[in-house]
């Protein structure tokens, strides 16, 4: 059981991140709102509850690692890092501008707290495996977390990595799959069906949990179970809504990679205010 206080705090953080995402992408004039919004609760739970981090020392050796394999959700990662104190909040308004520390897709060299340069889909899980193995080799008990998209798992490399995570018994690795049902060209099941997802990951030797990806209690429970699972990695399949929280963006593939106009930003912020 989690205290109402904790859950309410996470909910208000989630609302803040959603507002930041919308404002940031609106100001940038380009970016990916849909897949940033669908993963808000997952990333909020990680950065504001689960991860062992020190914002004043992003390179702290034994920190937990989070890799945003679906790198286009960078605005979400930046909002989380900024509000967690990794860099001044003002930086987020520079998103995608020339000279900004916030590149269109995450870059490890440019931004404090970003663990891996991503954006070319499908590569994050293999990198996470490497970090998890490094943790085991150095007998450091850091944990590695990675977030994948449901279109992203169409990349063959994801399954090469999935095989390796269980082969090397990486129980210090927890993956999330943002199961929002949409990719750019439409519903994932129409473009190139990855179903049945849970069975696939199970067959690859993973401990698989399926949850509501917008419900903090379920997310925290799943994270707890992942920590307790020994001898295999855990995949948390999080059922989500693409564009979650903004009525005109929800479940609409058109909002995958398009910036809202100033008017739409206003409307979106007003909606978030009412929650």
């Amino acid at each position, binding site marked *: 059981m989690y205290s109402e206080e904790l859950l309410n705090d996470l909910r208000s953080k989630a609302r803040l991140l959603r507002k930041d995402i919308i404002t940031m992408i609106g100001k940038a004039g380009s970016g990916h709102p849909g897949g940033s919004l669908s993963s808000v609760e997952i990333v909020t739970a990680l950065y504001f509850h689960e991860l062992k981090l020190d914002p004043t020392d992003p390179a702290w050796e034994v920190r937990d690692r989070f890799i945003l394999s679906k790198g286009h959700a960078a605005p979400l990662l930046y909002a989380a890092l900024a509000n967690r104190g990794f860099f001044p909040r003002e930086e987020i308004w520079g998103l995608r501008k*020339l000279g900004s520390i916030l590149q269109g897709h995450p870059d490890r060299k440019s931004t404090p707290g970003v663990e891996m340069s*991503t954006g*070319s889909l499908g590569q994050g899980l293999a990198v996470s495996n490497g970090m998890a193995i490094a943790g085991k080799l150095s007998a450091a008990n850091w944990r590695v977390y990675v977030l994948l998209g449901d*279109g992203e798992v169409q990349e*063959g490399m994801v399954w090469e990595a999935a095989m390796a995570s269980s082969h090397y018994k990486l129980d210090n690795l927890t993956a999330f799959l943002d199961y929002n049902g949409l990719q750019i060209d439409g519903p994932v099941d129409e473009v*190139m069906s990855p179903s049945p997802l849970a069975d696939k990951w199970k067959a690859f030797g993973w401990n698989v949990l399926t949850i509501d990806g917008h419900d903090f209690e379920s997310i925290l429970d799943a994270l707890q179970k992942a920590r307790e699972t020994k001898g295999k990695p855990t995949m948390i399949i999080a059922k989500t809504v693409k564009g979650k929280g903004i009525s005109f963006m929800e479940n609409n593939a058109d909002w995958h990679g398009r910036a809202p106009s100033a008017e739409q930003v206003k409307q979106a912020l007003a909606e978030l205010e009412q929650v």
Partner: protein
Amino acid sequence: MEKIATRQAYGKALVELGQKNEDIVVLDADLAKSTMTIEFGKRFPQRFFDMGVAEQNLLGTAAGLAAGGKIPFASSFAVFATGRAYDQIRNSIAYPRLNVKIAATHAGITVGEDGASHQMLEDIALMRALPNMTVLVPADAVETRKAVFSAVEYEGPVYIRLGRPALPIIYDDSYCFRLGKASVLKEGDDVTIVSCGVMVSYTLEAAKKLQEEGISAHVINMSTIKPFDASSLIESVRKTGAVVTAEEHSIIGGLGSAVSEVISEQCPVPLFRIGVNDQFGESGPPQQLMDKYGLNIERIVEAAKMVLKKKHK
């Protein structure tokens, strides 16, 4: 002036070709709305295959379709089409010399805000190094349409490099694109400027500025990078005695390298390569990035004067 993106022209050309030729099939990897293959997909859904986010599978499947007698066009962003799927292109397309047309969009730094991960600056180098591969970099919408049609007439693997931004129209419909032949856009005696793609319209502007200063530039659009039209280049350089190259690509391995290889072996003269200087790109508006990385009219003018000076030493 009317501006059209080369990817736009590609999408239209595919529909035209699809009407004429039943063997044309098109494959994409979850970017159909950006590569513009969506137009073909809407018209000929039975001949359109979205492979999802899976570029290696995209190129491998295209190889199989070609082996089965079809003429596949496979599209994605240049970085993923040539980068992620390089070995599929090498071993399943170029080596068996299969009739696959790889039309990659969003090449170069004009991708803009998405940043370095999406700005492909090495694709010409990668594709040019492959035996059996033909490499085309059209400069505007008119040339794109003609290049796409020529790619179908030619039997064998072809890489067509396309871009994201709208570009000025350079050619009119009477233009005769010939695969493997350079297109001379302006005759001149003092300096040869060779460019491709986005840089061609800048080169024409630069040539005008040079003319105002009494320098006459010979402007070549090298839209076929491979097979390389060495004789057009040498003919011009024998006359001018100095050469500048300009491309929206790394200076390593692209047009500048191809020109240097020919010039250094066959008629050494002062030469300067304009391109991205062995660096990754970054996020920003395309125009600001072009200026920051020195891919603009002023830089071409400067480089032309520099090689001229060297020539007279």
